[in-house]
């Protein structure tokens, strides 16, 4: 059984690679096509959340709408796009639900409501650039990471600033209520809070602030949007481990999520999702991160 699945996965990978080779690089707006898997009887144990979701054929996923490359939805599109969304699609497909259908509800979660939404059961999973922290693990379940990123600095293209070290005592923009802002302060710079990342980029462009800082992946996206005017500089000075959030009431989901992630690392669908989304901004596809073990239930 397991063998045939791996074979099938390899076949799919080979096929998709050859397709990708002859097709164009794909427009940025379109994600991967992920087909729902057949869920045979007994795949999920009776009474688990996964069985319940597969049975109902419906799932609600919390994603961000405002982060290009990770979770982004513009006014004209129906579904969000980005790396978080691609990973979510893999999980959805494993439950036997078609990720492209209306059975999947993409609920917008902002930084502040991710935990409440999980606790209330308003969303089943959260994939919203959700950094894994011990503090958050007190109230919700988090597993992964499926992506590890770090904070860098975005400056004007003609600036001599080479990294966060050059910004001591200077004003650096980031989004309110994000770990980025605290890291900036910890590095000795003065934090300037903003509502969105694009607002920060605007400030950097017109010279109101010297630099902005957040996860490198987001900065690359912004630099790509303003090519020739902005550049990403310096080494990563923090480590953000982006994981999947689930409710503490359904701890059985952890093993399942890790299983699906592990499979996607092996069969290449993870790498492919990366290339289609974040890879577009010039980043090399990294090695898949090591997953945290699930807490003993």
């Amino acid at each position, binding site marked *: 059984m397991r063998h045939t699945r791996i074979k099938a996965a390899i076949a799919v990978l080979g096929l998709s690679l050859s397709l990708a080779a002859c097709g164009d690089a794909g427009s940025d707006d379109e994600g991967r096509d992920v087909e729902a898997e057949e869920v045979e009887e007994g795949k999920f144990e009776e009474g688990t959340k996964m069985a319940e979701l597969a049975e109902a054929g419906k799932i609600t996923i919390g994603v961000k709408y405002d982060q290009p490359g990770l979770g982004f939805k513009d006014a004209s599109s129906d579904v969000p796009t980005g790396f978080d969304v691609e990973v979510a699609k893999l999980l959805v497909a494993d439950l036997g639900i078609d990720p492209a259908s209306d059975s999947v509800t993409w609920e917008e979660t902002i930084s502040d409501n991710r935990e409440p939404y999980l606790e209330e059961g308003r969303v089943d999973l959260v994939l919203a650039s959700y950094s894994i922290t011990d503090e958050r693990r007190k109230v919700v379940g988090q597993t992964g990471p499926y992506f590890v990123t770090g904070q860098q600095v975005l400056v004007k293209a003609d600036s001599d600033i080479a990294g966060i070290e050059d910004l001591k005592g200077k*004003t650096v923009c980031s989004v309110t209520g994000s770990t980025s*802002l605290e890291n900036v302060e910890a590095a000795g710079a*003065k934090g300037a*809070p903003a509502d969105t990342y694009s607002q920060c980029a605007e*400030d950097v462009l017109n010279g109101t602030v010297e630099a902005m800082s957040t996860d490198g992946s987001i900065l690359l996206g912004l630099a790509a949007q303003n090519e020739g005017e902005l550049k990403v500089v310096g080494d990563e000075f923090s480590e953000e481990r982006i994981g999947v959030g689930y409710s503490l009431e359904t701890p059985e989901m952890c093993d399942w999520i890790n299983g699906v992630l592990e499979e996607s690392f092996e069969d290449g669908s993870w790498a492919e999702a990366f290339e289609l989304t974040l890879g577009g901004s010039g980043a090399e596809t990294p090695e898949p991160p090591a997953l945290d073990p699930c807490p003993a239930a």
Partner: protein
Amino acid sequence: MDVVLDNASAVALAFGYTLSLFVVAGVLSGIFGTLLAAMRVGPVAVLSRAAAIYVTLVRNTPLLIVIIFFRFAGPKIGLTWSFVDISIGDLNLNNLYAACVVGLTVYTTAFVCEALRSGVNAVDLGQAEAARAIGLPFSGVMREVVLPQAMRASVPPLASVQIAMLKNTTVCGVLGVLEAFARMKGLTNDYASSRTEIFVAFALIFVVLVEVLSFASARLERRWRVA
């Protein structure tokens, strides 16, 4: 509560920003509001019309839009306020702070003007006529006779305007000043398990600040009451 106490210095600094925004914009809007009110009730038609237009325009514009105008439209035409860079202790009053103060001042000035005008209207017309009859010029009439009485009558509405301004400073939290609201969002993001406590603590501090203001205004009212 522990979270707030553990981060006491950061929280104190954040409220330092909140209070400094309030004090600076409060004083400036007090000065400009008084001038504007004088223009509005004065005998020069052009000035009075201009003041009326200012009030209509600014009072009908949401605060956020007023501040965004100075924060984002200003820099577009080269006005980055970069000449402002003052540090008082840990407080760093930079160009973003300046833009926020200007926005708050412009907005609150319209309300201060109207609060004062209500006070001026409460002064009996005979007072102004009597002042004029003894030969005072308009500035004298206003300074010596009308405004002192008008101020007294407008303490309650002025206090309301400034209390609203104290709370309006939170808008600056998403526009570049790391004040109480921005700090609260930072803390709730970091300490997901104690969100309610953080929220309640910040709300309580605001209640205390507003209570202090209300108390001060009540004392002023009592002190200036005509026996």
